[in-house]
């Protein structure tokens, strides 16, 4: 089987690669969004803590 043949998927290239492609993209994006969410939550909380400790000084 050649590389071109593999990507042609017996004429079903559009359907097979659209299915696998969109699935892959979504399953990569979701963890990335979660990492961003975690970072922004942590930043927000540490800012609040810093502000509170400065008030006490």
């Amino acid at each position: 089987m050649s590389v071109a043949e593999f990507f042609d998927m017996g004429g079903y290239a559009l359907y097979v690669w659209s299915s696998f492609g969109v699935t892959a993209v979504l399953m990569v994006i979701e963890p990335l969004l979660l990492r961003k969410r975690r970072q922004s939550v942590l930043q927000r909380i540490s800012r609040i803590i810093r502000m509170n400790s400065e008030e006490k000084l």
Partner: protein
Amino acid sequence: MNSRLINWFKFSSPASFYPLAGKMVPVFTLIAVMLIGVGLYMSFFVAPTDYKQGEGYRIIFVHVPAAWLSMFIYLVMAFWAALGLVFNTRLSGMMASSLAPTGAMFTFIALWTGAFWGKPMWGTWWVWDARLTSELILLFLYLGFIALQGAIDDSRRSDRAGALLILVGVVNIPIIHYSVKWWNTLHQGASVSVTQGSSMSSIMLWTMLIMALGFWAYAIAVALSRVRSIILERERDTTWVSELAEVRR
């Protein structure tokens, strides 16, 4: 009281579940990456060409696992929703909210890959048949749950309202499952059944099961990772959060 009961209630507190989830995320991420890696290899290089659908049938290896997960995640959400209503535990609502986006994503993937499989095989992207329509309703249930929770500021109340919506919507799950039996659908009947075994070749079946297990591990990793952020957001004013190493930078 027996020791198992004590342990369960200990981990229902967000403060002790947060570090536990943190330890479990990398484990399930690793399992997911390995299983999906093997599953993808088998999908394209091991599983044979189908005698009727040629290479086009390979869509099954994402379509069926995603569809299974879309229903399974909903049932797990319903479990947490019921637990939250009965025991009034904070963590239950957080777990339900954490699972919803991933469930919606797998429902979307099932519909999307179904359309791209239906076009070449049935000649149409979409039909209003019982299986497809009930799966679309599942997507709306997920989105409705997310929207409802987003619309209510008080987290206790949004958890209760969301839990009710989820539990009412559970009726849709058996409808999806049995739709291909109850109605004449364009969608084919089940190829894999608990009572009758499988009508697929065993290598195709194994590939599908490995992909499904990989998706399952992915869903656990993602849901646990999301619930950690939800815990931090909701518990930000507590002492235990302010004492966390990742917050004290």
